[in-house]
């Protein structure tokens, strides 16, 4: 790995936790179609729920009206295990959004769920220098409205 590709070790706090200054996730969309069903299931369960095909069991995200594997239109949104691995990530060093400026540099993770689908989540307790491909993480949801939640990726120390 080239030196120049490494993030500057300017973590917000030594353990990588977001600094004080309020929640950065101030953008609360109003989803519709299947996206609002996804979020309502997640809000009701208080944890990440993912669309699952009732016919073949395939997990899909974002949710689709027909299963991409078997074309079935029947599905539910059961809870996912929350266990995941880092598939990719970015460390943002610049923002024009006031709520995120206070949290620079912030780490955003593409989490590959144990069930297969990948979701975007904000890192919590993971410093920019500590992220690596394949790192075990846990996905935690934070309800923002009856129709929307955000996801955090936290280190998973359990085997």
């Amino acid at each position, binding site marked *: 790995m080239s030196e120049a590709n490494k993030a500057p070790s300017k973590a917000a706090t030594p353990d990588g936790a977001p600094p004080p200054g309020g929640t950065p996730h101030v953008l609360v969309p109003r989803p519709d179609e299947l996206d609002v069903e996804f979020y309502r299931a997640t809000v009701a369960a208080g944890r990440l729920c993912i669309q699952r095909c009732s016919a073949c069991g395939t997990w899909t995200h974002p949710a689709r009206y027909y299963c991409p594997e078997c074309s079935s239109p029947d599905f539910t949104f059961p809870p996912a295990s929350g266990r995941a691995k880092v598939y990719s990530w970015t460390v943002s060093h610049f923002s024009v959004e006031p709520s995120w400026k206070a949290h620079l540099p912030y780490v955003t993770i593409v989490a590959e769920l144990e069930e297969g689908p990948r979701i975007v989540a904000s890192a919590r307790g993971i410093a920019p220098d500590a992220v690596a*491909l394949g790192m075990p993480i846990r996905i935690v949801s934070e309800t923002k409205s009856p129709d929307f939640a955000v996801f955090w990726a936290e280190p998973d120390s359990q085997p």
Partner: protein
Amino acid sequence: MMVQNRSKGFARQAAIAGIGETAYMRGTDQSILQMVLAASMAAIKDAGLTPKDVDAVLPPPGFVAWDEIAAHLGIPDVRYTACPQMGGASSTAALTTAAMAITMGVAEVVLIPIGWNGYSALRPRPDARPNKRRFSAAFFEVVKNYYAPYGLRSAPWWYSLYLQRYVKQYDVPPEAAGAIALACRKHAQLNPSAMMHGRPLTMDEYLASPFVTEPLRKHDCCVETDCAAAVIVTSAERARDLPHVPVTILGGAEGHPNRPDELINRADVLDLGLELAAPRAFGMAGVKPQDMHFLQVYDCFTYVVLLELEALGFAERGGAAEFVKDGNIELGGKYPLNTHGGLMSQGHCWGMNHIVEATRQLRHEAGPAQVQGCELGLVTGYGDLGDGSIAILARNG
């Protein structure tokens, strides 16, 4: 690898006969419609035609519509219109769509314009002239519901989500992306219309430029631009009677990743639509990537160009860093890339400026950036989270 399409398709049936463009500007009082009309009229005149000769309009995927373009230019009989919805892949996809319409005899003179206030209207300035109509794409739903709430505001942040995987999985050095930025910037020094003309860039300056969102540095991102450009495509037969040497469309194709409306749930996030499109296009044209005399590759971000070069077949996945070394993609090298400066250094005109430059090169009218004696070249498009398009062009083919 996909089965190669060996059908002749629209090979050699159509040619670019006219090109037009506005200045590439940071700030303008002109509306998008005004710029698009100016570029269109310039292209029509360059082809030695009038608006009354135009019988098809393929508009951009937003901002302006085909009917207002036709009405303002005074095109009396629009026989065909279609609009590829592929963001930055739209311009080159429209070129192949035009070739198909011409091959089928549905149209004979096709106008393809694009333009935007990419600097003025998208910046929160008090005196900014707002866009009447937005760019339209379904992926904005996915962005709104799943990316934007995480501080991932616009294209650099979305694309970083998968480009960082490319960098980490294949250990891609920043110098490889820097080679793209430097080639574009070097070529812009030969082009007085380029926004970065007179502003050369060194590798040290590139490496010292701050991260926006990793792995993207400031100099990995293209420039925000107010501009428009347009081309006229006609039948290869009619093009021979027009003022310029015809630039023949040998082949072309589009391709889309599965699934096309989001970025991170593809089997491999590094699969580009171009990887599917390129073999189809080369198959139709009957040529190989290695036959190309120049490459005009859609360069919204440097790392995307590296992935496109791999998708085109110039390197294995993860291997583009070797390909771009030692001036291979600079004028004087084997595969000069973005000889006008590209989106990185000339300006962001949705890749239509790549088609305009490819046409100038094959007419042998590219001035100090001329690839001497070039006969064959390609243009690519990339957009909307991975859609790909490609056209293979030849001088009087």
